[in-house]
């Protein structure tokens, strides 16, 4: 009852015309920013931060929050239409989203992405509203051993659920881990594998790598042939998902939302994990896993929902404990602190209108984004009617602009081009590129958390067995690894062999 009254208070605040206007503006800016590779939510929020100094704290946080989850919506648009991930968490959407575009189902993919994001965001807000303090306490129990176990489990899940050759999937994930080793080692200060290039001391960014591997390699494969891609142009009535597609999306949206929210509340975890795991789960439990990679709607609904739910879950530690889960929430905390307010355990009691106003604005923001994005599906899909000879040069320039904007350095553009060439060659040899992105993002976190864990335990590996959460996750990972190796030991077919047989 208290929660309902507080929520009503929140809506009173959020439905103020000025607050509503800023929420709307934040959503639009966020969507545009999210569509631009290289300009992710962090860039959008950082650019707007000085503008919020003169605003009241509720409006400031509503505006920045709108940019954040707007960017999650926007990132999927270029993933689906052009196979260019707007940000790291949209990488998995590239796979089946672009395949749906090629089959003339771009509208359905965009619509399901918007609908799934809406439901995931809304469910995430409900979770935030009801469970913030409890979940925040759970998140606090995550230390370096738990992070290590979570990331290792993520790798085992990836290997077990990969549809193609497990060895080749592992090879790509390990290749991604290797890329993640470039840069300054946080524990010792050594600069590794920078080859005297100062910009590489910061490491290799996920945006140039993802844009190169997915976007540039696709253009090289298609434009290199001198004719456009075979994309079926949808009729007007085919722009929305069919009943069957909507029915097929319900399960993935619900599962993705729950998974994404749980992963999102863990401080420091990469949201990219949620979309990868969601994709793997949907493929594994599907009755027709052979459809994945070729335009399965579940391959869009699940990861997109997981991605948005993780974005909402990230606010739980931020609001309930004042702990940033990543750079974006750190900047948002800074925006609130400028006004003399410290997010933390007492925020809900001391500033109820701020907390509940923000929660209510997230409901409104999700609705605004759905209203904005669904009608624009037709407009976005019509971009595909532009002759490919004009489209791909503009996309290439767009990618150069985006990657340069990451840190105003041509090094990122060079990385994008090199990875574009590497991605082209790897695709020719039949490798799946998505695990490279996962490995790159997880490598620094995995190494740091492992070494921190060993520092905590004075070099004793038993620390992973002594902490219940870490032990549970390692056991789950080991079970999946053994299940994955079972066909090699028993010489029986596993689901991948059956998948291959069906495909042939």
């Amino acid at each position, binding site marked *: 009852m208290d929660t309902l009254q507080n929520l009503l208070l929140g809506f009173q605040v959020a439905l103020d015309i000025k607050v509503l206007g800023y929420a709307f503006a934040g959503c639009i800016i966020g969507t545009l920013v999210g569509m631009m590779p290289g300009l992710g939510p962090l860039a959008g929020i950082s650019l707007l931060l000085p503008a919020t100094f003169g605003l009241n704290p509720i409006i400031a946080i509503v505006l920045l929050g709108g940019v954040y989850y707007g960017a999650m919506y926007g990132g999927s648009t270029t993933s689906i239409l052009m196979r260019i991930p707007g940000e790291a968490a949209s990488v998995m959407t590239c796979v089946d989203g672009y395949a749906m575009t090629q089959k003339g189902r771009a509208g359905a993919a965009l619509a399901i992405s918007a609908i799934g994001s809406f439901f995931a965001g809304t469910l995430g807000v409900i979770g935030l509203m009801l469970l913030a303090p409890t979940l925040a306490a759970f998140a606090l129990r995550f230390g370096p051993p738990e992070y290590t176990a979570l990331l290792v489990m993520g790798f085992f899940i990836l290997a077990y659920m990969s549809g193609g050759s497990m060895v080749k999937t592992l090879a790509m994930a390990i*290749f991604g881990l290797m890329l993640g080793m470039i840069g300054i080692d946080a524990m010792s200060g050594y600069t590794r594998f920078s080859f005297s290039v100062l910009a590489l001391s910061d490491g290799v960014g996920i945006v140039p790598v993802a844009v190169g591997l997915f976007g540039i390699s696709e253009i090289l494969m298609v*434009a290199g042939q001198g004719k456009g891609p075979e994309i079926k142009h949808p009729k007007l009535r085919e722009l929305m998902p069919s009943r069957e597609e909507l029915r097929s999306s319900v399960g993935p949206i619900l599962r993705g939302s729950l998974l994404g929210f749980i992963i999102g509340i863990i401080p420091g975890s990469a949201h990219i994990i949620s979309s990868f795991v969601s994709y793997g789960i949907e493929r594994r439990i599907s009755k027709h896993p052979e459809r994945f990679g070729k335009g399965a709607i579940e391959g869009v609904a699940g990861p997109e929902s997981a991605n948005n739910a993780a974005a909402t879950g990230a606010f739980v530690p931020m609001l309930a404990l004042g702990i940033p889960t990543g750079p974006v929430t750190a900047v948002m905390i800074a925006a609130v602190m400028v006004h003399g307010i410290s997010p933390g355990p007492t925020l809900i009691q001391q500033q109820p209108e701020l907390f509940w106003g923000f929660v209510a604005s997230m409901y409104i923001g999700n609705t605004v984004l759905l209203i904005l994005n669904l009608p624009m599906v037709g407009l976005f899909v019509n971009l595909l009617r532009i002759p490919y000879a004009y489209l791909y040069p503009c996309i290439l320039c767009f990618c150069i602009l985006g990657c*340069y904007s990451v840190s105003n350095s041509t090094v990122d553009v060079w990385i994008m081009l090199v990875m574009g*060439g590497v991605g082209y060659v*790897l695709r*020719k040899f039949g490798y799946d590129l998505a695990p490279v992105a996962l490995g790159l993002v997880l490598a620094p976190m995995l190494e740091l958390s492992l070494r921190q864990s060993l520092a905590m335990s004075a070099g004793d590996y038993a620390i992973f067995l002594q902490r219940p959460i870490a032990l549970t996750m390692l056991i789950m990972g080991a079970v999946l690894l053994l299940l994955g190796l079972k066909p090699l030991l028993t010489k029986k077919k596993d689901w991948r062999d059956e998948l291959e047989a069906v495909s042939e």
Partner: protein
Amino acid sequence: MSWHRNLTNDRLSGLMLLAVAAFVAWQNRAYPLGTLQEPGPGYTPLLIAAFLGLVGVIIVLRGGSSPGVVETSWREAPRALVILIACGVATYALEPLGYRLTIGALLVFFLGVLERRKPLAVAAVSIGFSMLSFYLIGDLLRVPLPVGPWGW
């Protein structure tokens, strides 16, 4: 040359992964390894290189059944290389010449030379895209973009 005909995609890619692993392990010799209980900066990269090499060897050994390299079509490779080189040249010129001039020139190359579109369309798209994108991203969003010696 029978080895050439026996070279499959998996065997070649496995060998390439092995070469990358060996290169990383060689470069890694400059960093202290530490111990198993207290890994140094060189420990994890060496471990990763070892795993990559192992996986590369497995791919080579199991690669007999994959399609042969000679059977794979690389028809689009020359044009793809031209596209990549053009982007490379543009990247090199981006800061000295400025964003608008560089992107405009790149679009003229792609549309005019590679795709052989009509001059009016080439001019419109090149000038329009470079100017509009600079205005939206550089001026409105205030993302610092390179400006050339003549203010472009």
